[in-house]
C-alpha cells in the first residue's frame, strides 16, 4: 500500500467508506422490502402478479446498485458498462425468443401427455388423502 501514492493509476478508484456503508444500508432496506412484499397477499387485493413484479423490480434495482458501486462500473470506462449492459441484452434476446416460442407452441401440445407427472400427482393425492384421514396430531407435526 505504501507505493500507492506513487502509482496512483495502478490502484484505480477508491470508493469512500460512507458511500459503501450507504450502499450496504440501501441493499438491506431493499431486502426488507422484498421480505415485506412477500408477506402481502396480493391475490386478496386482486393484483395476482404484483408479487413477482415488485420482487423482480427490487432485484433489478439492487443488481444495478451492486454493479454501479461495488463493481465500480460507475467510475470505470464506459466501454466496460457497455459490455455489462450488452450481455444483459443478449440474455434478454435469448430468454425473450425462447419464451415467445414456447408460449406460441403451447396450444399445440397434447394435454395430459406426461405419464410420470401423472403418476407422481396420483401418489401425492393418495398420500394427502391418507394424511387427512389420520389424526390431527399427525397433521400438526407435518406442518411444522
Amino acid at each position: 500500500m505504501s507505493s500507492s501514492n506513487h502509482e496512483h493509476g495502478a490502484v484505480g478508484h477508491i470508493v469512500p467508506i460512507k458511500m459503501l456503508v450507504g450502499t450496504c444500508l440501501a441493499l438491506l432496506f431493499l431486502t426488507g422490502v422484498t421480505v415485506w412484499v412477500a408477506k402481502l397477499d396480493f391475490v386478496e387485493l386482486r393484483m395476482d402478479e404484483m408479487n413477482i413484479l415488485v420482487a423482480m423490480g427490487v432485484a433489478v434495482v439492487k443488481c444495478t446498485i451492486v454493479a454501479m458501486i461495488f463493481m465500480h462500473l460507475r467510475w470505470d470506462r464506459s466501454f466496460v458498462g457497455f459490455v455489462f449492459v450488452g450481455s444483459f441484452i443478449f440474455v434478454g434476446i435469448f430468454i425473450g425468443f425462447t419464451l415467445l416460442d414456447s408460449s406460441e407452441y403451447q396450444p399445440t401440445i397434447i394435454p395430459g401427455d406426461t405419464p410420470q407427472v401423472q403418476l407422481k400427482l396420483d401418489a401425492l393425492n393418495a398420500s394427502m388423502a391418507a394424511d387427512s384421514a389420520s389424526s390431527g396430531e399427525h397433521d400438526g407435526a407435518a406442518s411444522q
Partner: protein
Amino acid sequence: MTGDPRPLEQPTLTDNYLTYTRGFLSWALTLDHKRIGLMYLCSVLLAFLLGGIFALLVRTQLLVPEGLIMDQDDYNQAFTLHGGIMVFLVIIPSTPAALGNFVLPIMLGAKDVAFPRLNLMSYYLWVIGAIFMVYSIFGGGLDTGWTFYTPYSIDQNSAMGGVIPAVTGAFILGFSSIFTGMNFIVTIHRLRPKGMTWFRMPLFLWSIYATAVIQVLATPVLGITLALLAVERAFGIGIFDPTLGGDPVLYQHFFWFYSHPAVYIMILPAMGIVSELIAVHSHRHIFGYSFIAWSSVAIAMFSFIVWGHHMFTSGQSPLVNVVFSFITFSVAIPSAVKVFNWLATMYKGAISWNTPMLYGMGFIFLFVIGGLTGLYLGTLSTDIHLHDTYFVVAHFHYVMMGSALIGFIGGLHHWWPKMIGKMYNENAGRVAFVLFFIGYNMTFFTQFMLGSHGMPRRYATYPADAGFQMYHIISTIGSYMMAIAFFMMAAYFISSIFGGRRAAANPWGGRSLEWQCTSPPPHDNFSEQPEVGDCYDFSVLRWDEATQGYVWREDVDRPGEKSHA
C-alpha cells in the same frame, strides 16, 4: 538511429522461442504464447487425426447399401464421435487457440497475451476436456449425435452411457474456449502498439476479436445447457424430459443459442486468415478494409439471433419460424460483403500461386457453395424437404470443413515458416492442395445430390434400389483422396522441420508485424514494441534474392522513423 536499422530483429539460429529453454517442463509449464500455440496445434492435429479416422469409418460403412463394416450401434457411435471431436476438439480451438495464440501477440508487437497464465490454463482445460471426450467411448459409448438432443440423450434405457462424460468434456472445453476469448479481447484492447488504431489492425485481428466476443457471450449458455442435461439424465428433474412435464424443444433452444454462434466461432477466424492470405499473396492493398472489419462484427451480432433456423421442423411455432428464417437471410449480407471484397482485392493483383494462396482461393469457392446452399435450408418450405438429409450434411461440411478448416490449413501453410523457421516443399504443397480440393468436392458435392434425392443423415444402411450407392461410392473415394492429401501434408511439414530451407523473416511479402521479426521469432518477439503503419501497403517491400524473402525498400522509411538520409 545509427547504421541501417532495416531488419528489426537480427535472425539467429540459436536464440529463438523453440530453443530458448530446454526440457519437458520448459514446455509443459511455459507461459510463452508461441509455445502454447504450438502445443495447441499439435494437440488439435492429433484430435483431427482421431476425428478423421471416425469419418473414414463412416464413409467406408456406406460403400454398400447394407453397410460394410459396422452394425447400427457402432455406426451411431462413429458419426457421434466424428462430430463431437471435430466440433469441440478440432475446429473451435483450431484457428483461435492454435494459430491465434501464436500470431495474435506478434501481430500486435507485444511480448505475450494479456494473461499468459490463463492462456496455459486454457490449454490444460482443453486437454482435460479431450480426455473426458475420449473416455466417453470407453465409459459406455456415445451415440446421441454431437448435439446430445433430448429426450433421447436423457433416456437411460436407450442412449448409451457415455453421455455424462462427454457432456462434462464439452463443458470443460467450453471454459477453455472462454478463457482464450477473454484473453484475446483484453490483449487487443490493451496491447495494441503505437500507430495501430482499431482501423489499422490486420483483419485477422478483427475477426479474432469478433470470434472472442462470441466465445465469451455464447459459451456460458452451452455450459448451462450441458449442466442441465447432465442433471436431467442423472436425477430426472423434468426440465427437458416430456414424460416429467419438461420440454425437449427448450433443449434445442438452449443448445442452438450456443451452437449457431459456434459456427461463427469456427468460420470467422478462417475469414480473417483468408483476408490476410488474399491480400499478402496478391501483393495488393486489401479492398474495402473497413467493410470487411465491420462485416466481422455484424456477423458476430447476427449470429446470436438466427439459432431457430435449426429447429424449423422441431415443433417450433410458425411465428418464430418466420422470424428466424427472415433474420437468417440477412446473414448473407455481411458474408457477401467479404467475398466481394476478396475478389476485388485479387482483381489486378500480382497473384503468387503459393500453397497458402491456393487455400485462400479454395476457401472463397467452397464458402460460396456452402453459403448459397444454406439459403435452401433457411427457406421454410424447402427446409421441410431437406431437413435431416445429406443435403444438410453437405451444406455444413462445405462451411465447417470446406471453409473453416480450409482457412485453418491455409493459415497453417502461411505461418508455418514463421512458426518453425523452415520452408516446406512448395510443389508438394500444391499437389496436396489439388488432391484435397478434388477429393473434397467428390466427397461432399455428391451429398447434395444424395440429400435432395432423400437419403437421410445418420443412417447406417440404405435401400439398394434407391439409386444412392453410386453417390456414396464417389463420396467415399473422395474421402480417401482427402486422407492421402492430409498424410502428404503431414509428411512435407515434418520433413521441412529436419530438411527444409531456412525461412526468411518475410517469405511471402506480408506487412503485418509478425513478418518483421525473425523466423522463428525470438523469445520476446520484439526487443521494443515497434510502431506500425498501414499493414496492407505492400509497396514498401521488395523481393530480396539473397535471403529469399521480402525486405523494406531502402528508399522508404519505417513507420515512426525519421528520414534516415
